[in-house]
């Protein structure tokens, strides 16, 4: 039996009156990319900090590869928590060399890690002169120093330009394909959807939903724009039943069917003399799902 890279049981953290994380049971399985999704203040960073032993839980516990967080279990873990932080007066390369010493790995790994994040050209410059995106890249390079089996990344694409974001996602995906387990947090649903296998939605410190990205994607509908509207609706209801048909804001019908049923719906409408203007597959509105799950409250949690 392989041990799960991350397991938490009843994990909680309270700051005075604020409950940052409550009763969290989380499992990240070997080799998967797990996305931790939640609005500002949901408790993502707090959870990751507890995983890494930076802060102590007020209840429950954490296991990394079956062991409590600490020097032993962090041996195979690379992490970037809440933005990169380095010594501003040292160069990128020297920063990594110092961290390699702390990690107990050869200093030569610094060069490899820098190349991996595309920072070799500026490696000799002081960190204080780096742009936000370069700092973020150095943060990822530091997380890669140990050639980790588990990567914990807190909002890894923060501050990156679109090309940098795409590259960061590619890098993460490539690491995952190489067998590294990844736990990343984000408040960007699209990002999580692109690179993760599984998603946990955190809200108000609670895990309010958890599913595979596949499951999230199901629930798409056939969007039909046809006239006259009520006639079109009657026909589709007669064909599939009322519970499968709803109208969207723009007067189009959203029909809950398998994709391969689209020709049947079309044929039925045409046969009934309805004009079909548009027939297309509409992806599930993940953004709306996300807002529903998190209460749709624009205020912070």
């Amino acid at each position, binding site marked *: 039996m392989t041990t799960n890279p991350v397991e938490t049981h009843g994990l909680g953290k309270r700051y005075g009156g604020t409950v940052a994380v409550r009763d969290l049971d989380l499992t990240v399985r070997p080799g998967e990319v797990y996305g931790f999704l939640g609005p500002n203040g949901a408790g993502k960073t707090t959870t990751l900090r507890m995983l890494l032993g930076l802060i102590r839980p007020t209840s429950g516990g954490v296991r990394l590869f079956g062991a409590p967080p600490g020097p032993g279990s962090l041996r195979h873990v690379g992490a970037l928590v809440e933005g990169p932080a380095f010594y501003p007066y040292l160069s990128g390369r020297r920063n990594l060399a110092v961290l390699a*010493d*702390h990690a107990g790995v050869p200093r030569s790994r610094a060069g490899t890690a820098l190349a991996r994040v595309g920072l070799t050209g500026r490696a000799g410059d002081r960190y204080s002169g780096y742009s936000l995106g370069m700092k973020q890249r150095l943060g990822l390079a530091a997380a890669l120093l140990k050639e980790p089996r588990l990567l914990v990344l807190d909002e890894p694409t923060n501050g990156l330009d679109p090309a940098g974001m795409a590259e960061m996602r590619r890098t993460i995906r490539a690491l995952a394909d190489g067998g590294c387990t990844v736990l990343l947090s984000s408040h960007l649903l699209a990002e999580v959807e692109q690179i993760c296998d599984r998603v946990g939605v955190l809200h108000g410190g609670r895990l309010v939903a958890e599913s595979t990205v596949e499951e999230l994607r199901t629930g798409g509908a056939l969007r039909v724009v046809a006239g006259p509207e009520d006639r079109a609706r009657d026909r589709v209801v007669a064909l599939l039943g009322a519970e499968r048909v709803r109208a969207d804001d723009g007067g189009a019908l959203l029909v809950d069917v398998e994709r391969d049923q689209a020709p049947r719906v079309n044929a039925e409408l045409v046969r009934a003399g309805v004009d079909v203007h548009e027939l297309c597959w509409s992806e599930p509105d993940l953004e709306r799902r996300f807002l529903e799950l998190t209460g749709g409250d624009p205020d912070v949690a």
Partner: protein
Amino acid sequence: MWRDVRAELAKQAYRPASWLLLAIGVVLSATFAHAVPYAGYRGAASGAPGAGRGLAEMLPAQFAGNAIAGTPVFVGALALIFGVLVAGGEYGYATWKTVLVQQPSRATVYTAKLVTVAVGALLLVLALLAVSAAASAVIAALEDQPGGWPSGTAVLRGAGAGWLVTTMWGTLGVLLAVALRSVALPVGLGLVWLLAVQNLLAAIAAPLLDWVAALQKGLPGANAGSLVAALGAPTGTPGVAPLVGAGQAALVVAGYLAGFALLAGWLLRARDLD
């Protein structure tokens, strides 16, 4: 562990502020232990502090005592700032998380920091000794005086005392930085204690109130001053006065060093790190 020490030493060695502190220590020490007294002796600046000192005190025979004379107060203040930088930098740059997720334990990194403070203090004391020796040799040559040097043991004891005192102040800096989780406030409070409160106690309160005088004998500054005074530091220097015996003073200073180190270590272990 030794690689953590190497990492900590690198962090300080590549930091310009560390060398600035060392340079300031050396310049101040040379100025007040030799340049000003010598100028005073030559009649050039008769009103300046230390200007009345006799020639004998500036000669090579006294160089070790002169070198460590500043450690109870102003060199101590520089050592305290260094200690704050060593520990407080991780709070100021928010780099604790960066370091600790690389897997060293807090205890290991902390111990490496204490070693770094001790190494920095040793470098500072050695630099002070070297400059003091050079300055006294120059004065002896200028004045055509015989260059009798102190015994090796005397120099070693002076160096050891200076090292103990500066490391103690550096460790106080570490404690303040860990307790207050920052850089600026610990430096400020540390200096207020070292430069103002201690002087006020010694110069104003102790002569008026017996219990302050008694209390003072237990404070780190007074014991540091007594220790270096016993090893030849001229008593005209601020903070240098033989209030207690050398043996007791050394023990008390070492006790403070250990106390500061343990308390800071406990605090670092017990609290969350952002």
